[in-house]
């Protein structure tokens, strides 16, 4: 079972889009190391005959009527936009100019 290296941690943080400072990196490496160590005990368990449980519910195919809904709460949340222009959500540029 793998431990997480500093390079790997930085890659994971980049994937998760989280900026970490050096102090946080050190603490995370230590904590994640301990936690992954703890997970090792799962390997001793034979799970070949157990089908993965992929969620919390036993329901299958929950449908709703294909009909108009009276209250769609449309427009709610606009006031929470961090930045807007003419009622539209304003986002920062995706690419540098």
């Amino acid at each position, binding site marked *: 079972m793998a431990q*997480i290296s500093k390079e790997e941690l930085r890659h994971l943080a980049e994937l998760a889009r989280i900026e970490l400072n050096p102090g946080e990196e050190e603490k995370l490496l230590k904590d994640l190391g*301990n*936690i992954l160590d703890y997970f090792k005990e799962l390997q001793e368990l034979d799970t070949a005959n157990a089908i*993965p*449980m992929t969620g919390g519910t036993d329901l299958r195919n929950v449908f709703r009527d294909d009909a108009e809904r009276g209250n769609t709460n449309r427009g709610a*949340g606009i006031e929470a936009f961090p930045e807007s222009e003419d009622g539209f959500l304003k*986002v920062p540029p995706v690419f540098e100019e």
Partner: protein
Amino acid sequence: MDFLHDLTIKKFHDGLLAKKFSALEIAQAYFARIKEKDGEIGSYLSLAEESAIREAEATDLAIAKDEQIQDLAGVPLGIKDNILIKGLPATAASKILEHYVASYDAGVIQKLKSQQAVFLGKTNLDEFAMGASTENSAFKTTKNPHDLTRVSGGTSGGSAAAVAAHFALAALGSDTGGSIRQPSSFCGVVGMSPTYGAVSRSGVIAMTSSLDQVGPMTKTVEDAAILFGAISGKDPLDATSVDHQFGADLLGPKLEKVKQLVVGLPEEYFIDGTDTVVTKEIENTIEKLKSLGLKFKKVSLPHTKYAVAAYYIIVPAEVSSNLARFDGIRYGTSMREEGDLKDVYLRTKGEGFGAEAKRRIILGTFVLSSGYYDAYYEKAQRVRTLVRRDFEEAFGQVDVMLAPVAPTPAFKIGEKINDPLAMYLCDMFTLPLKLGGFPAISIPTKSVSALAPGELPIGFQLIGKKWHETDILGIGQFYERI
């Protein structure tokens, strides 16, 4: 106002109808008490006095007009701050949602509003309901009303402390691996995590969607049954919710039926390492229940020791997905002074999330990543099946199970906060049953008035078959009458 100490939902309702007091007077009494005393405990993150007064007046008006009122009309509630109430803050105790105001009502809030309940304010929690002590809150630590040097438990510590300190008549919490039951045990209140699917999660800020459930936190088991009855049921906006009829036994259990129930004692939950105070209290509880006529039987849940590890793989995996939406684009804190979109993400999440949120997001990203998925996430899902099967097999022999809630009473503030693994192990008795979606309730082993000076409250746990909340609430309602 000592009067609030004795009040229950039932007594409040009867008092309203008898015109002993008005809903407004009681709401005002709670606000006065909160303002005087919550400074040292820290159960609330925000108060909603203006809207609460309006809600209380609506109930008083209905009574004045001789209209029928429902069980929860005028009942002053504290609501965990990861549950949305339109027009009120919903921070999930995170800096990333510090200034967020909810634009709609959660499904459970809609149900409570239809009964004219009163919402006093939003209660503290560990950030995004991740922790076991409320020390992960970005804003404050909720202290235990029985000992201010100790934690209230978590993650619904604010709700538990609010009920214990009489800052609310009852409260809502949410439970993923023990977040209702453990703080209930630490603070000496009743708290239930219902069957998965019994209560809507629409408008509840998602942490681990395959486990999260909302449930009641109250002074008595009877109150828990009333509040659970009000919030349960299908909600079209939560596809996992189910319309299940719990029947008349929910509020009026019958002793002849309850004493037929066979109670299982899972041997893996009675182990060395559990505080002797807890062990002794649980033994006393078993004796008391025997006096009601209940039969006990030893059972085994052989995969118990693997449940914590499986849980702490599944939870971060779902967290890394659920918390991805907090990106500073549409709502919440946004660090967008300079740079492009990616810089906004990096800085917003870097500064907006606390240490435990970051730890789980990164761990979740790891266990889901190519090359590690099979060894961690899929393995954990297989173990989840085995843990669930343990419970199903045990429930072939017994009707309910009894266990401790936590291995210790409330621990000291600061004791575990720097050791995430020690914090994770706080959930060892509360989380396994959640992996299978079973309901469980924490009930104080003795009433607060029976505690010796300096004695801390301890809860015992009753675990039920799925959709058998009536069994655990039934035993609990007779237990509290002993």
